[in-house]
């Protein structure tokens, strides 16, 4: 089979469709899925967002080639300076992802590796293959945790607006960038995501960043994700073979001190 798959890869090359999209492989015994069936429901009657989704790869949220992009980012003076001062090679503050530190919400959602959502009536859990990270979203009405130290992904709570789940995230440490190309965000950022399962095989997702230190107004990225029932998440132990870091091409991360 390997030979066939490699032959398939050559076929893609011939079609000029690089970078190649990754095919998933059907798990033994996996049943066929009717993707146009109604959205599955949780015990509380709300739609379940559960599944492995083809979370859109966005290395640059302003890339017009990817539908749902942001046309223009409304920088503040701080945001503009932080964007223009970012140099991937000089690795401003060290490249935190090259250090295998957490990617944060946006770079995990928009990264090249799959996302699985596990969902019940009280919690939504995002499982990111990237670095084998997880992120928990209580949906049982609890508030944000008082005095919780800031973190890479921040803290999230979810609430329903009809059949749309709204996830708010705050208390972000400000060390992360929005995307691979390095658009800025600060510790004042608030991320609001919406999840709407249109049918069994389709989920509409929005990502809104409200960050008064980096942007003069909120902006939103919109995605439509397809279910990938044949994809199984795998372990991703980031530091096991991180030669770029071990050999010094990626410098050690130094937390920025101007993000609050």
């Amino acid at each position, binding site marked *: 089979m390997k030979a066939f798959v490699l032959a398939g890869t050559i076929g893609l090359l011939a079609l000029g469709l690089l970078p190649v999209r990754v095919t998933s492989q059907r798990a033994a015994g996996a049943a066929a899925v009717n993707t146009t069936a109604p959205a599955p429901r949780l015990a509380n009657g709300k739609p379940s967002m559960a599944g492995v989704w083809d979370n859109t790869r966005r290395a640059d949220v302003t890339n017009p080639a990817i539908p749902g992009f942001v046309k223009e980012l409304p920088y503040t003076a701080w945001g503009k300076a932080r964007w223009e001062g970012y140099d991937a090679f000089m690795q401003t503050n060290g490249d935190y992802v090259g250090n295998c530190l957490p990617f944060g919400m946006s770079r995990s959602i928009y990264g090249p590796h799959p996302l699985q959502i596990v969902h019940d009536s009280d919690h939504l859990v995002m499982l990111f293959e990237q670095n084998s990270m997880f992120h928990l979203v209580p949906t049982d009405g609890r508030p944000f945790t008082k005095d919780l130290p800031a973190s890479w992904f921040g803290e999230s709570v979810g609430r329903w607006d009809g059949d749309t789940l709204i996830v708010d995230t705050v208390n972000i440490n400000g060390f992360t960038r929005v995307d691979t190309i390095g658009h800025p965000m600060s510790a004042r950022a608030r991320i609001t995501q919406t999840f709407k399962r249109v049918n069994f095989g389709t989920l509409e997702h929005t990502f809104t960043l409200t960050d008064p230190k980096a942007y003069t107004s909120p902006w939103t990225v919109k995605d439509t994700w397809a279910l990938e029932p044949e994809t199984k998440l795998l372990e991703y132990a980031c530091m096991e073979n991180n030669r*770029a870091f071990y050999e010094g091409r*990626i410098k050690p991360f130094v937390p920025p001190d101007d993000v609050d």
Partner: protein
Amino acid sequence: MKRASLLVCAALLSAHTLTAHHSFDAEFDRTKPVTLTGSVTRVDWGNPHIWVFLDVKDDTGKVANWGVEGGAPNALFRNGWRKDSLKVGDTVTVEGSKAKDGSLRANANRVTLPDGRRVFAGSSGGDK
């Protein structure tokens, strides 16, 4: 071949790229292409990228051991690569970009296998 055709279709429709977890430009120089032909001496199949080492002979006959970075192992696996797709002793040709620090390191974009097939190696070069 039916299976192969299905896989090609799935690849066209599926979503996850083989591309890297950090900026290509942090480590490699897309303006410095390199083609390396040599004998595989070691394959490190691990995250965040696989690394393949080659003994490459230059025009004077001097041999240097190059290390080339490929894609993330899970993504490569889903695209048909296996841990033993490249074996020690295989003669392969790698097309990619040199590291910015001038070391004997490169990012692999294409690999031509011993049987002549030329396959994508998971470079992030097109996905800044």
